């Protein structure tokens, strides 16, 4: 099990390193000099040069890259050009909001996907299946911003039940009941496509597991359908579902850009937009690398989770 994990780590690190280099290179090629934005109209060549030196932009490319990577290992993410504070502090706030949103969305999506696909397969009724398939396709076909705006219009404006956006005013922990209300709409909006994709996959794979001989064996031994689905088919369907979930998690950050904009959720998505438009390299490069790291770590975790869920990998083939 451990060696299984260890074998995957080097390639994950490789992806991260290549990505870090590409990000760094790409940002240096983007037209627009950050010094222009900072120096102002009345700046002299001397003051521009001073800014350049202060930001380390006068050093050669490689040494800039290496000092950045070196800083990453010391958790020193650099200083924001525009905002002035350390990138780490800037990120901490946004990251918290994005993580809270994404994790809530993920929990909603996974819970709902489990419930809907289990009910669909256990009940196996024609109209229920048709209804779920319809909802499902709609969930996949509705663009995130359209569903987001619909949710706002319906639940915040026409029926003012929930806030139209923003984070809870006193933080997440002070009033859990208020927090839930603030989270509900954006999380549902972000969860919708994940739920749809996951439900579709899980339902299909549960159905195909139900056709497997081992299910027939258990059925022939008198095991009820509900137990067949939940206790027999589900554990077999989970490993591959986890992989699909891993891919979905990777797309969550991209979806968060839209959802955060619609619900004015001050997370990494909105941060990256403003940082890119402001040519705030230190923030942009860390954010880009972070999104790659999230993806890579998610893949790693899915691999591990998948292996753990499947005794054939967990225990190995030795008799």
């Amino acid at each position, binding site marked *: 099990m451990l060696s299984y994990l260890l074998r995957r780590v080097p390639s994950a690190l490789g992806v991260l390193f290549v990505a870090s280099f590409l990000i760094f290179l790409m940002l240096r090629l983007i037209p627009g000099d950050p010094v222009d934005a900072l120096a102002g109209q009345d700046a002299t060549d001397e003051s521009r040069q001073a800014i350049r030196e202060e930001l380390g932009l006068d050093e050669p490319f490689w040494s800039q890259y290496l000092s950045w990577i070196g800083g990453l290992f010391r958790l020193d993410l650099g200083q924001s050009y525009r905002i002035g504070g350390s990138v780490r502090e800037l990120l901490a706030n946004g990251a918290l909001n994005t993580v809270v949103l994404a994790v809530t969305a993920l929990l909603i999506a996974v819970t709902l996907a489990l419930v809907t696909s289990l009910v669909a397969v256990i009940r196996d009724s024609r109209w229920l299946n048709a209804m779920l398939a319809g909802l499902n396709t709609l969930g996949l076909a509705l663009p995130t911003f359209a569903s987001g705006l619909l949710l706002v219009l319906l639940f*915040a404006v026409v029926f003012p039940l929930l806030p139209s956006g923003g984070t809870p005013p006193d933080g997440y922990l002070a009033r859990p009941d208020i927090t839930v209300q603030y989270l509900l709409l954006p999380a549902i909006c972000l969860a919708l496509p994940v739920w749809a994709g996951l439900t579709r996959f899980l339902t299909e794979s549960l159905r195909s597991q139900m056709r497997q001989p081992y299910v027939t064996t258990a059925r022939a031994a008198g095991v009820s359908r509900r137990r067949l689905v939940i206790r027999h088919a589900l554990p077999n369907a989970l490993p591959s579902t986890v992989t699909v979930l891993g891919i979905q998690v990777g797309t969550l950050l991209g979806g968060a850009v839209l959802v955060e904009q619609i619900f004015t959720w001050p997370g990494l998505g909105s941060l990256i937009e403003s940082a890119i438009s402001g040519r705030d390299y230190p923030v942009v490069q860390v954010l880009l690398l972070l999104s790659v790291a999230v993806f890579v770590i998610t893949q790693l975790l899915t691999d591990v989770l998948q292996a753990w869920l499947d005794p054939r990998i967990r225990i190995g083939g030795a008799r």
Partner: protein
Amino acid sequence: MTAVTPPRPFARLRLLAIAVALCLMSACTSAVGEQNDRGSTGDPVDGGTLRVAAKTDLIPKSVFGQSSDGGNALIGLVYDSLVEYPHDSLEPRPALATSWKVAPDGRSIHLELRDDVTFHDGKPFTSEDVKFSIQTIADPAWSVQLQRTAAAVTGFDTSDPHAITLKFDRPLSNILDLLDIVPIIDEDTFDQVKAGTGYNGTGAFRFAGWKPNSELTFDRFDDYWGGKPHLDGVDVKIVPDPQAQASGLRSGQYDLLLGTTARDAETFGKDKKYAVLDFEGATQQTYVGFNLDNPDLKDVKLRQAVAYAVDRERILDEVYRGKGIAQNLSWSPSSPAYDEAAAHHYDRDTAKAKDLAAQVGKVPTLPLQYIAGDPTAEAVAQIVQANLADIGITVDLQPVEYAQMYQRLVGADFDGLWIFGHTYAQYTPATLPVSAYPFNAEHNASNFLSDQYAEHADAAWGAPDPDGDVAEDAYAALNADMIDNVWLTDLVTFWPRIVTSSSVHGIDYTKRTELILRDAWKDQ
């Protein structure tokens, strides 16, 4: 022996669902309802937090320069200036300075300062703070548009802590503009300003915290020299999308919007639950600029053709919903330099425009840059594009992010045409050609350099009395420069409009569109 009960997962799920539903329905308070049910009594009451939605966030490194909603709110709430202009005139009122007197030679000013003012951290306010504040603004690192004016203040007599004499290296007709604009800051805590961690001022509200891209919070300053404010505090949320601001006000999450579109403001204005405040006097201008470094724009006939072609009335009516003035001149109507005839010199005349364009000959496609993601700018740009198409000029629209737009303005490197806003037209006329980026006679965003213009600007700057005859002549000359050379042409002069819920009262603002909330209160 333990009996094994088969688990009943659905039963558990059902319980959970019921629990959540019950919690949502009864036990919990609604985040929305809590903020809506309030009755109005009509009299000022203390307490409550004003929740403001702002479009753009504070940028600490240019807090005194590049204007942003967040930065403006910060300056308006936390800091005071020495004098204050009323909205509708250029006759300043006392603020931190109780009285002032400009020397007869126009080369110095003496100010008496209040002696009962302390900073939020308890430090008393003295003349040294004035000196430090003006010197800070004079530092090019902050890219403040008034930097040139501030830099012209070369002598500081701070021997009396409650009075100061400022000496100039030349006559400054717009010195009071500077004193209205410069926030009085504290040297001891200045390190925190650039880092965005602390802002120590003398204003009615003290800075409580900033979460980048998210919110700024302010608490009431009980020892404010102008009396304790009614509000407990102010929360400024950063909400870049005008649509989200409107939704937030409707759903009761915000009390005051700083970034509504004209159309949203119009819609809200028809609803009794909301109030629309026009910041009259704090006028802003939208203009089309020309970068003369682009060879296609070298010919003034082409620029004049554009000035004749644009349909200012339509832009005013359709985009700004009629709230403003359509004119080609860059002054506010209240400005001493405003000239009714000159302001309508370039009223729409398609025939003239076509004629001028024909004289230029074949014009290649011109790039037109405007603020990306700003519905107002996009609408204006598209109308301008259509207007120019009518006279046979093709324009390629290029949206540029706000930060980039500002950078290009500062660096004077727009590709060709651009649409942007300018301000300072409501101040002493000299401030505009001396300090505003699009007009600065020494180096401006259009790369328009003219000795004649520089001379006229200097004359206006040095005029002993901004309303005097010398000044009047200089203004007339400047107007002629603008009309002849057209390095930019104004489209619309408008005033910012903010929307509040009708439970908010007593909102005031500075000429620079900064919120003043020392007398504001909220129905409880």
